[in-house]
């Protein structure tokens, strides 16, 4: 069943956004985030929201999937907004005892929540359409200039890829062990908390055992195929930028420079 477990939020379908180079998508997300942070009027946010909706419609993924990724953050966004309401001073609309709610406070809380939701939304565009492997791949290539400063980019990316790759494997393994232990009569639901904690050793010990075994196997397999750390290497699959990559990058940078220019013409109003 391993092949059915997809890590993160990646949804494997065919679309324009799925075909884009991961580097382009990472850069675009970065630019969109900068645009969202520097935008501060409702008009700008509305424009960016429309732009994001258009972009996400290129992904062949239902908007409900995007919403699923946002819901876990709603509580934190709500708390942040509430704090914001009380912290901004201005014309009072409601004043009870020490609490003073201002029109400016409400406005900036709304502004902040929309901005945060849009930032998560733009991250979703990246995460839903890019598999973890190509994400780390793209990140590795983008960080490559750091190699000049003797920063071990390749090793870092390798560690990241392997640990991410092993999460579903270990998840599967722990599920398998759990079922195996249940089928030999070990009850994970019965007993006091202390007893149940002990019962979990029945999963933990074999799982840790298996992880060491798997790590060892992997290291040996990599060495057997000629992998040594710290050598200059080339890639089996070169990532090549296509015309659509450039067009996409161009559109996003236009969006960002539009926002920045807007600020140059109409300086910040808050």
């Amino acid at each position: 069943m391993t092949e059915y477990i997809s890590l993160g939020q990646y949804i494997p379908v065919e679309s324009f956004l799925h075909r884009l180079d991961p580097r382009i998508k990472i850069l675009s997300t970065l630019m969109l985030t900068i645009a969202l942070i520097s935008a501060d009027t409702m008009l700008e946010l509305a424009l960016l929201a429309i732009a994001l909706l258009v972009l996400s419609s290129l992904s062949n993924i239902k908007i409900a999937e995007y919403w699923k990724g946002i819901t876990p953050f709603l509580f934190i966004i709500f708390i942040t907004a509430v704090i914001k309401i009380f912290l901004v001073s201005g014309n009072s609309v409601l004043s009870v005892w020490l609490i003073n709610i201002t029109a400016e406070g409400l406005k900036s809380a709304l502004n902040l929540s929309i901005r945060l939701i849009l930032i998560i939304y733009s991250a979703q565009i990246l995460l839903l359409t890019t598999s973890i492997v190509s994400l780390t791949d793209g990140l590795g290539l983008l960080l490559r200039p750091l190699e000049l400063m003797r920063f071990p980019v390749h090793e870092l990316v390798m560690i990241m890829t392997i640990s991410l790759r092993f999460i579903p494997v270990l998840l599967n393994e722990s599920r398998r062990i759990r079922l195996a232990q249940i089928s030999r009569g070990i009850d994970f639901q019965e007993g006091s908390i202390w007893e149940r904690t002990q019962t979990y050793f029945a999963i933990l010990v074999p799982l840790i055992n298996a992880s060491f075994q798997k790590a060892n196997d992997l290291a040996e397999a990599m060495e057997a195929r000629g992998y040594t750390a710290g050598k200059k290497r080339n890639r089996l699959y070169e990532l090549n930028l296509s015309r659509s990559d450039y067009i996409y990058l161009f559109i996003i940078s236009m969006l960002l420079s539009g926002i920045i220019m807007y600020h140059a013409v109409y300086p910040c109003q808050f």
Partner: protein
Amino acid sequence: MPIKAENVVYTYQAKAVYARKALQDITFQIDEGETVGIIGRAGAGKTTLLKLLNGLLKPDAGRLFIDEIDSSTIKKNSSVLIKKAGLVWQFPEQQLFETTVYKELVFGLKSQHLDSAEQNKRVREALEQVGLDYERFHNRQPSTLSTGEKRRLSIACFLVLKPRYLLLDEAMAGLDASGTERLIELLSRLNRKDRVGIIITGHHLGQLSRLCNRIMLLEEGRLLVDSPTAELTDYYNILMERGFTLPVHQEVLYQLKGRGWDINSRVHDAEEAVQRILSSL
């Protein structure tokens, strides 16, 4: 009491895009004390079938009775079926975790609330059943045992629960020739002496047919062959096409029959085959 499957269907991730039919319309009955070998390619549904018999999965359609318990009526992860039919997973030694053999065996009994005398008795019996000496082994650390011993210990972990059936998933995998030999010996003894029904999956028809009196062939979730081991030659072509070679004595009789000999190719073991050849010479 027998195991009865009536038109059992099971689909993995039924609602998802990845939905994969693992079992389609399976019907059979396995009587108490039978030894059944299930063969089939990887992904044919062998393991799924064992999980259903053990209650880890429930059929999507059709009915499944184990000892007259309808498997669709029991709660998820309930131990009712587990006590009836213990499922020994592939590489069961990987699930050993306790510090001594004794503790390992007792752990599964915790939920049964037995007194310590009864626990002790069961542990001794189970170790004896798998041919490990209690005095020598009960204080050993499971991780220091050999692979064959570990596998026998993990089978003992099921036997302490006194199951009516033992379901084994690829039990011979990773064992050397003598380890396999001893395991087959152990399982047939369990079946003969203690009337434990054995249902075992595997790829090696020769090995399974020495242990089992009945062979089932699954293909893409369907039951293609369900035959007494002695009558496997009736399915010669079906089996050969899928790469399952008959035991040598059956193969020889089948070939002789093909060359015009007037001989019955249904045969239980090599000895019987030899006798039959000699008498028709």
